[in-house]
């Protein structure tokens, strides 16, 4: 059972639909203790980092316990930023802190618009289970204003004004800044790779 955490940060219909196409029907846990039975956890999210305050406390603890049991975790967009220590967007709200670093606003100017909305290409510096079968330079759909720094956990990077982490991978912890559920065939492939990691 893969759990999709609904903490009120946006609409989850597309994420569900994407996973359905990737061969998994997600369930939404009613309480943090439900995560004890999860084979995988998806933290979605759009909008302001402040929304992740709803995960503080019991949810965060339950997710930590699951990660310690080596249950695969996937953060999407805001959910990926939450894997880091925190974000300049809401400095008082701590992230999960499973990946070191802070998210910052994308640089503006020089004709570049922020938010970064649309299809942009992935650079793949290394092998990745999550991005298996996704070629270097594949384009995926982004929509965000803040981004995570490039670190050794970066499984893919992207550039918009400056380089940022487009995907992260550290053992059973995965994250994507883009929206795989909106990124056509490559996106569904990525979701399928995550589903595979939960089996």
């Amino acid at each position: 059972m893969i759990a999709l955490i609904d903490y009120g940060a946006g609409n989850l219909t597309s994420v569900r639909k994407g996973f359905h196409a990737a061969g998994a029907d997600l369930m939404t846990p009613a309480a943090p203790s439900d995560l004890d039975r999860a084979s995988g956890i998806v933290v979605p999210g759009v909008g302001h980092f402040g929304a992740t305050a709803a995960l503080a406390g019991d949810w965060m603890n339950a997710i930590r316990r699951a990660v310690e049991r080596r249950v695969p975790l996937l953060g999407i967009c805001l959910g990926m930023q939450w894997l880091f220590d925190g974000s300049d967007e809401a400095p008082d709200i701590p992230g999960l802190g499973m990946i070191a670093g802070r998210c910052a606003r994308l640089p503006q100017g020089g004709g570049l618009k922020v938010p970064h909305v649309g299809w942009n290409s992935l650079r793949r510096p290394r092998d990745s289970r999550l991005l298996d079968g996704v070629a270097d330079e594949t384009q995926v759909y982004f929509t965000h204003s803040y981004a995570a720094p490039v670190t050794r956990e970066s499984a893919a990077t992207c550039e918009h004004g400056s380089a940022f982490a487009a995907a992260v991978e550290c053992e059973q912890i995965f994250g994507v800044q883009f929206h795989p559920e909106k990124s056509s065939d490559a996106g569904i492939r990525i979701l399928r790779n995550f589903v595979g990691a939960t089996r």
Partner: protein
Amino acid sequence: MLSKRLIACLDVRNGCVVKGVNFESLREAGDPASLAKRYNQEGIDEVVVLDVTATIEGRRAFEDTIRAVSRELFIPLTVGGGIRSEPDAAAAIDAGADKVGVNSAALADPSLLTRLASRYGSQAVVVAIDAKREQGRFRVFARSGSTSTDRDAVEWAVEAESRGAGEVLLTSIDRDGTRAGFDCELTSAVSSAVSIPVIASGGAGTFEHFTEVFTLGRADAALAASVFHFSEHAVADLKRHLRDCGIAVRC
């Protein structure tokens, strides 16, 4: 590098695409879901579905259409036309829309943009602006271009951004349906004034029109309906043309 987006627009009435379907080669013309699927296979970057029905029965049929279109479509889907309130937006989003386009209702009550943005995120809120040239300015019109307002398109776009809109869908009333080319002056004026992406609409007739609007017009995306019906390979051919002109597009 961020690609310029090509967006196909489907005008839907009672479950059928009603615009730009006068070409015999287009077998699936009447069915929005098959058309969206074909465009997706051809490499379109996004789809916009516009409701041009007025009745309650029509609206229910429209939600079924959104559901059918979104089922097989794993690229962004925007729904517009007749989104007047939060419940209208919720119905469209629950049916599978990723973004909602708001026009007249936002002009009547700009705080609707803020409420939708706080509930769904700015990335889900598209302000649709219909503008017409008047004495050297661009006047905003409401109700499908039928009602004049006191607003200037550039100023309204700036206010809509500050109120929470995440994108601008900008239609030139002067060019709509003419195939004479996008209004690059209008598009550039709005695109330079806001930091959110601007989707140019109205007037697409040739591939060269897209090149113009992405360069002179500073558009981030371009929307068209009938131009994609020209041939089975219109999307791919257009992307090849744009690439040859040095414009970044998704392969």
